[in-house]
């Protein structure tokens, strides 16, 4: 009798726990939208969400429950584990940000994201996509469905100084020289010749690893699951980037060279990816002054803006700086729609790309056409005070910049490192760059791993 009684007690406890465990029904009316981030990463998005949260508080129709809250994690690894496990179990954050370390291309295939067009239609939320940059917005469409919604984007632009280039006295044959022509697209092949004839100390301010990653993105089609690594052109470009990488390593290792690290080095090219206002205001001037120390006095006339570095001469590929994806498990469709509406609105986009904003994507370009034009107007109206550079907003340089930004015809999901380049082929790249893997083997293994990754 005693045994039966104890068995009944154990069973009762188990049953009670099981029954009450399933009883609580989540009340979503008071629940805020969630975004997962690391403690460090939070600062990147804080500005954006803080502004939106204030907007919600001020808007009588919304209120606190429409706000976005952060779920913080110590580091990327913990964030990734938690986010993926929860999403697999039917939970996870409501919104994913493309700047997060996630295999977006795989998650799309796995049906982890909602089709945003479908969501907007279901929630009866009207967004006029013709008022947005169609080419950039199309970058988020996979198999006819809008899984990624680009919010801001960036072009690939570089700046150089023709006076400085002349001063370097490189022995590049005339036909191989870059034309000092604004808007010229620099390809990987151009780099090859530059490296061939330049001295090792005449370097580029271009991170070779980032170039390598972009070369991989340029030679694969994530949407179609195809790779184009086994071509002569790819092999040639690979060798060029490796050479560039070697130069960088040499500079880091050679103390004699290091003294010039902030002087003559980094002179052929510099990044020039700034918002229109910041281009005019100070950033580009400040940056180029630092990098073109000798030539700061004659700055405007001798500067040249290039597009690239691209695979083909007619490419003008940018990248999505910030985009969002919606978790398919979310039950907060209406609130998400409001957030999307705000993010793409003139108000939201103006805030994100504001010149006074410390938001991490403040140098990016809005996808909203009206905001884009407004930003451009503001830049042109900007009066430069206390200097003689860039005061002419009608300068060829600025016009070229505008043209390059306007003509971005496609955007890659990533710029630089991503889940694919780090977790999938990171070790292979490292081995190849450090000469532990010959090129043919590297390409074979790279193709195989990428193919597996895309097709799995």
């Amino acid at each position, binding site marked *: 009798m005693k045994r039966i009684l104890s068995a009944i007690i154990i069973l009762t406890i188990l049953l009670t726990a099981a029954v009450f465990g399933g009883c609580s029904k989540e009340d979503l009316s008071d629940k805020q939208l969630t975004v997962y981030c690391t403690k460090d990463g939070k600062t990147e998005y804080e500005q954006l969400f803080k502004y939106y949260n204030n907007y919600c508080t001020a808007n009588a129709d919304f209120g606190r429950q429409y706000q976005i809250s952060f779920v913080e994690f110590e580091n990327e690894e913990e964030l990734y584990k938690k986010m993926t496990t929860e999403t697999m179990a039917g939970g996870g954050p409501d919104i994913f940000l493309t700047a997060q370390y996630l295999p977006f291309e795989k998650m799309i295939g796995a049906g982890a994201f909602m089709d945003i067009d479908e969501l907007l239609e279901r929630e009866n939320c009207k967004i006029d996509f013709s008022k947005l940059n169609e080419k950039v917005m199309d970058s988020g469409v996979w198999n006819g469905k809008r899984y990624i919604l680009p919010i801001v984007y960036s072009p690939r632009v570089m700046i150089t100084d023709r006076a400085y280039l002349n001063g370097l006295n490189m022995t590049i044959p005339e036909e191989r020289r870059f034309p000092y022509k604004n808007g010229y697209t620099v390809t990987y092949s151009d780099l090859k010749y530059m490296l061939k004839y330049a001295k090792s100390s005449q370097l580029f301010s271009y991170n070779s690893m980032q170039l390598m990653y972009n070369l991989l993105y340029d030679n694969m089609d994530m949407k179609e699951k195809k790779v184009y690594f086994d071509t002569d052109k790819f092999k040639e470009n690979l060798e060029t980037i490796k050479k560039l990488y070697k130069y960088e390593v040499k500079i880091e290792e050679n103390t004699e060279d290091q003294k010039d690290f902030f002087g003559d080095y980094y002179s052929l090219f510099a990044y020039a990816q700034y918002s229109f206002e910041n281009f005019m205001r100070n950033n580009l001037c400040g940056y180029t002054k630092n990098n073109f120390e000798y030539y700061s006095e004659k700055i405007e006339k001798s500067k040249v803006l290039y597009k690239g570095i691209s695979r083909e001469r007619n490419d003008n590929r940018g990248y999505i700086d910030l985009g969002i994806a919606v978790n398919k498990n979310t039950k907060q469709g209406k609130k998400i729609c409001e957030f999307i509406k705000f993010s793409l609105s003139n108000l939201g986009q103006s805030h994100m790309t504001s010149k006074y904003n410390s938001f991490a994507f403040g140098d990016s370009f809005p996808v909203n056409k009206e905001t884009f034009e407004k930003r451009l107007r503001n830049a042109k109206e900007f009066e430069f005070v206390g200097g003689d550079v860039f005061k002419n907003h009608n300068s060829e340089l600025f016009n070229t910049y505008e043209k390059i930004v306007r003509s971005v015809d496609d955007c890659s999901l990533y710029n630089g490192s991503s889940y694919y380049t780090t977790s999938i082929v990171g070790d292979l790249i490292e081995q190849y760059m450090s000469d532990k893997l010959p090129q043919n083997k590297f390409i074979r293994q790279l193709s*195989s791993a990428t193919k597996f990754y895309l097709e799995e």
Partner: protein
Amino acid sequence: MTRKRRECIAAALFLIPSFAGILVFYIIPYIICFVQSLFIGDSFVGFSNYISLFSNYTFTLALKNTVIFTVTAIPLLMVVSFLIALFLNSFKRLNSFFRSAFLIPVVIPVASLIVVWQVFFEDYGAINGFITSLGLPKIEFFDSWFSMLMIIFIYVWKHCGFCVILFTAGLANIPEAYIESARLDGAGPLKIVTRIKIPNITPTIFFVFLMAMIYSFKIYREVFALFGDYPNEHVYFLQNFVNNNYYNLNYPRLSAASIILSVFIVAVLFVFFMLERKRNYLE
């Protein structure tokens, strides 16, 4: 209520928590996994995940490699360990030393073993050093079909010791009288092995087969340590496929592949138990 009946009820009640555990942690997740394999996102797609799996290059490759490995490595392991056990059984003085020696690979951590095998198999490793010294071309063990041979070799080498112990224990249990009388009847060594020893250790053979099967599914550890998440196409196994799909969050495909893998294992075990039952029945 009789005492026996009361005891039965008590036993059943005590067993229920255990069954509940199996239900909650095994059966229900399995059912959820199956249900998930019928969906992509929120939309029901029926068996299309299964159909698409079989038209997926990586899955068919993984399946092919797993089958090749299983049908090659398991019989090889069993034959090699049986022959070693036979040898040790004939030299009883050496038996204990060799049994301990053969067990060493089983107890050494995989990571340490891999470091050793890398030294042997890499492009400029010991084996290639020997091969090139003979004037033969170098073998790329990490980037050719030799990868499969290398993995089979490592598998046999690592698990051989344990199987040898099981076989020697089985062989030691055969009554000496059977062998003596067979010898008196004029049976040679081969006949003694095939007609006396093997039939008498059939339960051991089944057990070794079962263990070899379990070990074969664990070979992923060695493959991962040697080649990483994405090995070359010759040693890309089902476990790689399942594991990578887990990390890449492809749950519908992962669920479908897991169900197929589990069905495959259950089918093999079913055949195995049927054979064992048939043998018991014949006995």
